C-alpha cells in the first residue's frame, strides 16, 4: 500500500496524478481461509482489519453479495455518539468513539470525523427526566454529556427555534461535544484499503448460498455463488440480511428487518453547526461537508427488504424539521432512500457465538450501527480470533434472549421505536 502523505500528494501533482494505484485488489477466492467474514460493510471490513492488524490473522476473506460499503454503510446519516444509558452499551459505544478519534491516522485514510457535537432535544417532562438521567449515568461512566437549557441550546445551535409557541417546545437538550459525523464511504474504503494491504481478500459479487458442516456439526465451509470456500471460523456481519443468511444454517434469529429512511436537501452554504436529534418529534439533521442537509427519518412499521418505504415517513420527519428550524421550510429535498436495518427486541446488538460451532454473528445494530463501526469490528475480531468474546461484547450474547438478561436501550436508541 502506498501511504498517503503531503509528500506523495506533491509528487503526484507533478505526475498529473497518473501514479495512484488501485486502493484494493480484486482477488479470486482461494480454496480455504482461516476466517471468512460474510458482508463487506463497515463492520465486516473493520473486523477484517483488526483481525489482521491486532491478532495477526491475515488469511481472511471478506465476501460480499454486492459491492463493498453498498448497504447501510453508504445509506446512514453518519451520526456518532456514545451517550447511552447502560454500562454495557456505553462501554461498547465509547470504545468505538475512542477508536474514531484516531481512525484517520490508524488507517492512513481521512474518514473526516468531525466532532461538532450531538444535541438531543427534550420536548416534554419525561424527555427532560430521561435525558438528565442519561447525563448523570454518563458522568459516572466517564463519558461527556451535559444538560443545556433552551437558551444554551440556542446559543450552541443558532438555527434552533426555542419559541414557547411550538407544538412541542424545546425544554432543553443533552449535548455530547465529542460526538459528530464522519464520511461514511471513506470509512468503508479506508478499512478496505488497510485490510487489503495486510493480506485480506475482499471478494465482491459473491453471495453466500449455504454453509457446509462437518460430522460434529461445526461449520467447515461456506457455499457461495463462486464455489465452496473452506473456513475454520465464519463471522456473519450482514445487517438487514442476517436472518436470511443464518436461515441457510438452520438458525432462527430474534431479528426483524425494517426499512429506515433518510433524505438530503440541495447543497447550501454552511448554515448548520452541529448534529441535532429529537426522538420525540422525530428529526435528525446535520449538514454534510458538501452542504446538503442530511435528514434521518424513521422506520416503516413492517418487515421489508425493498430498500424503500412509505413517503409519509420522511414527510413526518420534515414536518418536525420545519417546525424546529423554520429557515429550512423552503429548502428543496433532492433524494430519499431506505436501508434495511435488523432490529432486536431490546434494541441492542448481538455479537458472539451462535448455536452452530464455528459460526459467529455480529448483527442487530438496528437504527444506530454506523457510530459503532470501529468498536464493533474491534471486539468482533477478538471474538473471531480467540473464539471467546472481548469483555466489552460479552454481555451482547444471543443467549440473553433465553436468560432474560436483556440490555434494554430503547430509550437511548437514535430512532424512536
Amino acid at each position: 500500500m502506498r501511504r498517503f502523505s503531503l509528500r506523495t500528494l506533491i509528487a503526484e501533482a507533478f505526475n498529473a496524478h497518473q501514479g495512484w494505484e488501485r486502493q484494493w485488489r480484486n482477488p479470486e477466492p482461494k480454496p480455504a481461509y482461516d476466517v471468512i467474514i460474510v458482508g463487506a460493510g463497515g463492520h465486516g471490513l473493520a473486523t477484517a482489519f483488526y483481525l489482521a492488524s491486532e491478532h495477526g490473522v491475515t488469511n481472511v476473506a471478506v465476501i460480499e453479495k454486492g459491492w463493498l460499503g453498498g448497504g447501510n454503510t453508504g445509506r446512514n446519516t453518519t451520526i456518532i455518539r456514545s451517550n447511552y444509558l447502560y454500562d454495557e452499551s456505553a462501554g461498547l459505544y465509547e470504545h468505538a468513539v475512542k477508536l474514531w478519534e484516531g481512525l484517520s491516522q490508524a488507517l492512513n485514510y481521512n474518514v473526516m470525523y468531525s466532532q461538532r457535537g450531538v444535541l438531543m432535544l427534550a420536548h416534554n417532562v419525561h424527555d427532560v427526566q430521561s435525558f438528565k438521567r442519561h447525563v448523570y449515568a454518563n458522568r459516572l461512566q466517564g463519558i461527556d454529556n451535559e444538560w443545556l437549557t433552551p437558551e444554551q441550546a440556542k446559543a450552541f445551535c443558532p438555527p434552533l427555534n426555542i419559541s414557547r409557541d411550538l407544538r412541542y417546545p424545546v425544554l432543553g437538550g443533552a449535548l455530547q461535544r465529542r460526538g459528530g459525523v464522519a464520511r461514511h464511504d471513506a470509512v468503508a474504503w479506508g478499512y478496505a484499503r488497510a485490510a487489503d494491504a495486510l493480506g485480506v481478500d475482499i471478494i465482491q459479487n459473491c453471495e453466500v448460498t449455504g454453509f457446509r458442516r462437518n460430522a460434529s456439526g461445526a461449520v467447515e465451509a461456506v457455499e457461495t455463488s463462486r464455489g465452496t470456500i473452506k473456513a475454520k471460523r465464519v463471522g456473519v456481519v450482514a445487517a438487514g440480511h442476517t436472518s436470511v443468511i443464518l436461515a441457510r444454517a438452520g438458525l432462527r434469529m430474534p431479528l426483524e428487518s425494517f426499512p429506515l429512511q433518510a433524505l438530503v436537501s440541495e447543497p447550501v452554504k454552511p448554515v448548520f453547526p452541529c448534529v441535532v436529534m429529537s426522538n420525540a418529534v422525530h428529526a435528525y439533521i446535520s449538514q454534510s461537508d458538501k452542504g446538503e442537509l442530511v435528514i434521518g427519518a424513521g422506520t416503516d412499521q413492517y418487515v421489508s427488504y425493498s430498500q424503500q418505504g412509505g413517503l409519509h415517513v420522511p414527510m413526518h420527519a420534515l414536518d418536525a424539521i420545519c417546525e424546529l428550524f423554520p429557515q429550512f421550510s423552503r429548502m428543496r429535498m433532492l433524494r430519499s432512500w431506505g436501508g434495511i436495518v435488523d432490529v432486536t427486541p431490546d434494541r441492542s446488538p448481538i455479537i458472539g457465538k451462535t448455536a452452530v460451532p464455528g459460526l459467529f454473528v455480529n448483527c442487530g445494530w438496528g437504527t444506530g450501527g454506523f457510530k459503532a463501526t470501529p468498536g464493533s469490528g474491534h471486539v468482533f475480531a477478538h471474538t473471531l480470533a480467540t473464539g471467546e468474546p472481548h469483555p466489552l461484547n460479552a454481555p451482547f450474547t444471543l443467549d440473553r434472549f433465553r436468560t432474560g438478561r436483556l440490555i434494554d436501550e430503547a430509550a437511548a436508541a437514535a430512532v424512536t421505536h
Partner: protein
Amino acid sequence: MLLIPCPYCGERPELEFRCGGEAHIARAADPSAVDDGAWSEFLFSRGNPKGLYAERWNHAHGCQRWFNAIRDTASDRFVESYKMGEKRPLPGGE
C-alpha cells in the same frame, strides 16, 4: 405507502393500519411446562424472510378488526389477506 387489502373493508391506505408482526406464532398450551428456550423462541424469534411472509394487521382507523395477510417482503406486494382463525392459504401454513 402500501395499499392493504382488509378482508372486511377492501383495499385501504397503510395509514389506517397497524402492523402486528409475524402471524401464526402460537402461545404454548401449557405455559409452565415449556423451558426457557421455548419461551425465548415464542417471544423473540421471528422468521423475517426475504419473500412471502404471513403477518398480522389491525385496521385501526377503519373496522378495527385484526386479520392476517401474506406479503412478499422483497417487493412489498400483498398476495392475499384472510380472516383471523382461517388457515394460511399458502404452503407453509399451520
